[in-house]
């Protein structure tokens, strides 16, 4: 093995490569919010690439209010033993002990999520300190790069969770992609100021300018309720889709889940999209983001 070019030790776990690589394997797939082992089975049967184990879906968190926290370990265990696909779970922003517990439970990815009530209004979790990889939300490129600096191995555009209104997901995805295109158009000597404006490290900004993409996988989330929503986000440049309340708050979850999976794979084929959009029954009722008072908008949590 002395001939190997790689300087890394013989065997290593929790490297940036296996964390980011795990997200690469989820690309083109749908990750579904579930609150029970039964829902997790339905999601797996429908072709989900992973499930997000939660106590309440965002629509219920929104309706019921109160402080929202990491799920009960029993409930997460139940979901882990119910399915063979990866299981993710949410920790509050900045709550590194919730993240330690989730890692100890053996979840495959931690979502440091604005859907839960933040535990620290200044600092996010130091995600480099963990073996388990993290996904974080972002509304723009600077936010995405700050999360990557802290060790996030995957980014999702935030959208506005629990609404069934896709407009914020669209805004955030367009914004991130637009800011990447702008960086690509800048001469080298203007990237220093661009980094200052983005409040992100110069090295990362330069890497994005050169590659034309984030150094980690970019999914979308927040308000996706139909196969057409999922396909639109894919056409806008998402590499995969998180669906929260949109599935289990709808009339026929199994059928809708399967339809969103198909629409994500064939996001650029209107004939397939038309076929899978038929006969799905009621979509989740939904709330217009405009009608939510500012303090109740989840996307504005995190910075």
């Amino acid at each position, binding site marked *: *093995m002395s001939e190997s070019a790689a300087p890394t030790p013989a*065997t*290593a776990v929790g490297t940036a*490569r296996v964390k980011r*690589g*795990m997200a*690469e394997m989820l*690309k083109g797939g749908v990750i579904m919010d579930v609150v029970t082992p039964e829902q997790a089975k339905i999601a797996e049967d429908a072709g989900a690439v992973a499930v997000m184990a939660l106590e309440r879906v965002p629509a219920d968190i929104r309706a019921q209010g109160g402080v929202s926290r990491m799920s009960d370990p029993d409930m997460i265990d139940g979901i882990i033993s119910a399915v063979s696909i990866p299981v993710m779970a949410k920790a509050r922003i900045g709550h590194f002990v919730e993240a330690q517990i989730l890692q100890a439970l053996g979840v495959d990815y931690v979502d440091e999520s604005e859907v839960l009530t933040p535990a620290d209004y200044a600092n996010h979790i130091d995600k480099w300190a963990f073996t388990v990889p993290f996904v974080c939300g972002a509304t723009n490129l600077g936010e995405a790069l700050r999360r990557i600096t802290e060790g996030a191995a995957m980014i999702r555009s935030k959208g506005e969770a629990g609404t069934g209104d896709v407009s914020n997901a669209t805004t955030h995805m367009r914004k991130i992609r637009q800011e990447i295109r702008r960086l690509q158009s800048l001469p080298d000597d203007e990237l220093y100021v661009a980094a200052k404006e983005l409040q992100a490290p110069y090295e990362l900004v330069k890497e994005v300018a050169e590659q034309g993409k984030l150094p980690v996988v970019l999914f979308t989330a927040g308000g996706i309720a139909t196969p057409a929503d999922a396909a639109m986000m894919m056409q806008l440049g998402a590499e995969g889709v998180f669906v929260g309340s949109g599935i289990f708050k709808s009339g026929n979850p199994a059928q809708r889940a399967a339809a969103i999976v198909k629409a994500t794979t064939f996001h650029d084929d209107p004939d397939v999209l038309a076929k899978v959009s038929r006969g799905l029954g009621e979509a989740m009722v939904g709330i217009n983001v405009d009608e939510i008072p500012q303090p109740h908008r989840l996307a504005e949590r995190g910075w």
Partner: protein
Amino acid sequence: MTVPVIGVLALQGDVREHVAALTGAGADARPVRRPGELDAVDGLVVPGGESTTISKLVDIFEMREPIDKRIAAGMPVYGSCAGMIMLAVEVLDGRPDQRGFAGVDMTVRRNAFGRQVDSFEAPVALTGVDGGPFHAVFIRAPWVERVGPDVEVLGRVTDGPAADRIVAVRQGNLLATSFHPELTGDLRLHRHFVELVRASR
């Protein structure tokens, strides 16, 4: 020397990385999602991803029969991780309805090394590939528990608790690895596969 056309099954997974690696290895690489697109390729890569999802989508979008037919007719196929599972005739710890292609006579165990916190990087020496051991990336990876008489074992884990586990095999024109060479920038295995495709034409 003509450039072989190699498809990457693009239903779900790290398609872009395989397309990039194949292109770097001298192939004309393209994503394949439909039976018509399969007809145009000389070889196929089944990428890393979630094998339960890929297996389902293969049936829904009617790709199973065309791929099985091409495999029977000798088309070279390379599968990494989920792709290895898709090429196994028998899968342990999978879903009961999970089915792979009529591929390699082997039994594969899904998520055999453990969950994501157990995912790792380690060197693996591969028979038939020059230039020293591979720096292999294993992500919720499978291993091979049984191989049939026609299957050649190309690589095993060298140390640690899973030492000696089989992680790379070949049967005729079918090649499978538990790990992901497409994530490392080491193109040797993709070059090896491109040569296999070129030789089979």
